[in-house]
């Protein structure tokens, strides 16, 4: 006789927490609000002139809140409200994506283990100050190592609830 009890929590009932969660050796919280830009250009110099900021030159490097994600792509995490010039008519693309993603922060000695529970990169070898786009299981994220024990994770808004809860599930085991 098969008897399948209903699940306690359904995917639809998962909640995105608002307050930080402190676990044993790891803390999960929301990052401060940010202005986010997707910046594109074949020639970094033209783009740098448009936005008036220096751009990191190598994929994975960051500089002043801007990460180089690809050969012609940068991702800027700037103080909320920052308004960048669009460079109209120039061979650049400046797109405001401030609302597209949410920033989550994992910090503490267990943070690496939480992130590694679903991210296949060798994150221990990632230097402080590096950033990259990657995945956590099937969800795309941008990982930014802000300090030895502090990781900033950018995730598209509608995936944040799942990711928050996946982190919560991994936290008790991450000591």
């Amino acid at each position: 006789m098969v008897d399948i009890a209903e699940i306690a929590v359904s995917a639809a009932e998962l909640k995105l927490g608002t307050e930080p969660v402190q676990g044993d050796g790891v803390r999960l919280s929301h990052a401060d609000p940010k202005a986010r830009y997707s910046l594109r250009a074949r020639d970094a110099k033209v783009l740098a002139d448009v936005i008036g900021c220096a751009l990191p030159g190598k994929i994975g490097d960051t500089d002043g809140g801007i990460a180089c994600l690809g050969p012609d792509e940068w991702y800027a995490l700037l103080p909320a409200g920052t308004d960048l010039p669009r460079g109209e008519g120039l061979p650049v693309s400046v797109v405001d994506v401030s609302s597209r993603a949410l920033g989550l922060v994992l910090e503490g000695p267990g943070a690496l283990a939480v992130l590694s529970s679903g991210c296949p990169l060798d994150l221990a070898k990632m230097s402080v100050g590096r950033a990259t786009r990657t995945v956590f299981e099937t969800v795309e994220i941008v990982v930014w190592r802000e300090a030895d024990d502090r990781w900033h994770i950018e995730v598209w808004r509608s995936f944040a609830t799942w990711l928050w809860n996946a982190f919560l599930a991994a936290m008790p085991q991450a000591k």
Partner: protein
Amino acid sequence: MSGFRLADGGRIDRRTKRTFSFDGKASWGYAGDSLASALLAQGQMLFGRSFKYHRPRGILGAGVEEPNALVTVDRGPGRVTPNLRAPSVALHDGLAATSQNRFPSLRFDMVALNDQFGAFFPAGFYNKTFMWPRAAWEKVYEPIIRRLAGLGDSPTTRDPDHYDATYAHCETLVVGAGPAGIAAALEAAANGGRVFLLDEQDEIGGGALSDPAQWAWLAEASAKLAAMDNVTVLSRTTAIGHYHQNFVVAAERLTDHLPVDAAHGPREKLWRIRAGEVVLAMGAIERPLVFEGNDVPGVMLASAARTFALRYGVAVGRKLVVMAVHDSGWRDALALHAAGVPITAIVDLRRDIAPELAEAARDARIACYPGYAVTKVSGRLAVDGVSIALAGVGKGLKLDCDAVLMAGGWTPTVHLWSHAKGSLRWDENWGAFLPDKTHEDLRCVGACAGAWDFGSGLSVGLLPAPKPLHESKAFVDFQNDVKARDIGLAVQEGFRSIEHIKRYTTNGMATDQGKTSNLNGLQIASGVLSRPVTEIGLTTFRPPYTPQSFGAMLGHHKEALFQPLRKTVIDDWADIQGAVYENVAQWRRARYFPQGSEDMDAAVARECRAVRSAVGVFDASTLGKIEVVGPDAAEFLNRMYTNPWKSLEPGRCRYGLLLGEHGFIIDDGVSARLAPDRFHLTTTTGGAARVLGMMEDYLQTEWSDLNVWLTSTTEQWSVIAVQGPKARRVIAPLVEGIDLSPEAFPHMAVREGQICGVETRLFRVSFTGELGFEVNVPAEHGRMVWDAIWAEGQKHGVTPYGTETMHVLRAEKGFIIVGQDTDGTVTPDDAGLGWAVGKKKPDFVGKRSLARPDIVAPGRKQLVGLLTEDPQMVLEEGAQIVADPNQAVPMTMIGHVTSSYHSATLGRSIAMALVAGGRDRMGDTLHIPMPGKTISAKVVAPMFYDPEGSRLNG
């Protein structure tokens, strides 16, 4: 000796008793026992019943190779696990195990009658019978076969346990923590890299756990490993498989060894490890010997008896006979003797025994029978003696005993090596395959590399016997009841390849995966065929190394975390309003908003009327959005879409139709030009990622000269559709900086400005046929703006509507939904969208395919409208259409209904359909045969409401 527990020795903790039950009977053992050792200590010899004949079976091995002693462990509701190997089940307080595959009890099993009739069930018997009468196969034979098959019972309720998973990285991964693995780990760790050492047992040590002489060393090495920061030692962790580029997957068992009330956290953990170098130190497994009666409970591997005695302090009998063809059997016998286990005799097929072994046996007063073989084991539920004969056929004698130990030589564990596609070579000395070459950074050490001293011996598998092969009951695969004669029969019936023999006899396909049977099967086939083993082949090893729970494989992806469910920022509002949802791609969307006891039809009718007569609001945020920016943006879109884009002025919108290169519609959406070098594209909800990927493909690989970039903005913008004659009045008080007058802001225009104090891209577009706006605001403000529109809308009778209403409204206007009215085989012309194809454009994606012969041939299915003769009859979506309803099955179908609704606006049903040559059938009556009735409908243009579009321009 008390019972079968030796007076001393072993790694068990004799001060700590553990109580457990087996088949409901209370029993006890010590901390450190396995279920098998604890039961053996109580004198239990009978552990299970075999798969096919239900023959009584005891313990064969002391590790994962065990084929017979399978039990079900019950840890409470939802926590029942079948088919666990008793030697691998750690004893804990409260452990409740039951035997399997017997009815009604282990000692008295009625199905064991099968054994009496075993002669009628040789290998492959089912292929030869159960064919007459034909109907009986389904009704009688198959149900009986199915009921008799299977081992334990499946769980029947939801598993309350959770599972963990992680990725891990190391420079060196060592699989197997026996002496060779530990040495390899220590060596690698000294170089400073990250080292993982995995072992499947409860504690590390491997073979050393059964050798007290090594315990001091083991303790020292364990301590040393534990003290090194760069070393991770995982016991109870089985390396399941080796995958490409040293990706090794392992499962760690976290709680099953603990009493239920002490088990917290995940039950198992999946380790997905990428290693620089992999060192396999997986050891070797002793082979049984194949002789008459080798499956009677009490006949087991010599190495198992050694482990039970020296690791667990249990004698497997009081009078043991060893049947060896290998030195290791003698060594084990001597070790057992030294530990106080009474060895009566050593029988060895070899005439020449190494003098030091023979001498030591003599000193131990063990009778030796060189040149002899066991020819028969007497006893049914337990051994009570063996017959032996010179060379198996000569003069015989009987020996009194209660257990028989088999020493048939050793098989290196090359499974993971083989997973990695490493090649194997046959080694005569081992009588087994050894690792040869690999293209991975992978090596074997210790016994699995063939680098271990077990002594020497024969590799015979089958012992010589007085009976001819076809009469013997000598088992090769114990669990699956494969006898040596079954292999003989397979060969006789023409099966020559080892893969055929395996599949025909099922040798090696049991839950032990052939760990003790593969090589013996191969040897026997080789003997019967008189061909060398290497010509018969080797069955390939596939992951997992041992059976692994589904739960461990899925890690966190269980229940609520199975897959993300995407929700918009307005979803919570819809939830409070009692919306009924539907899943679309990864999203959930409000389908309709029932009030009171309304069903879907009533709610949708009300929502439709509201939009047509007043105003409705709809959360369209899930639509895909792409920002296309750069000097060549218009040129790029012109190449991607079917229609012209270069002439579109900033501030205006255009419907875009996207084809695959095969010429069929794959997506559509309304897009806006915000500036000469900036477009805001929309895609379907489900197509967003696919369209972006496709566009990136063309941009990067075909037209890399274009200066244009694509950015997904799907989640940047919340989209609130405000539709209906009063739409302008609802948003007007909220909007700043945009002239909303029809003259300044016509249909298919876009303006940037502010709404409720935040920036907006305001589209004047309509998927409903009414005056309409789509308010795009940054998602962080989406809910606030929605609330404001909702509040303002109260003055105008605003009604929220869902996707179902959206579908009805657009169908009344004949707007298609890609994926519903198209199905991947529909061209623009088929869909009546020929107008959206730029005739003068020299090229666009898919254009060339539209000129293929079948695409331009007459008679293609074309999108039309259908009006049923009975206006209240709503056709079923997917219903098939025929011209002649009176034809016989199979009928000639000329099309199908793609969309069908009751239109509250029109007070009748409407439908869209793809019909062969449909546009030439306008006015014709076609037929839709349904079960028990045929519905007639007239072909009309797919436009049911406001064909002039006057309402759009209000």
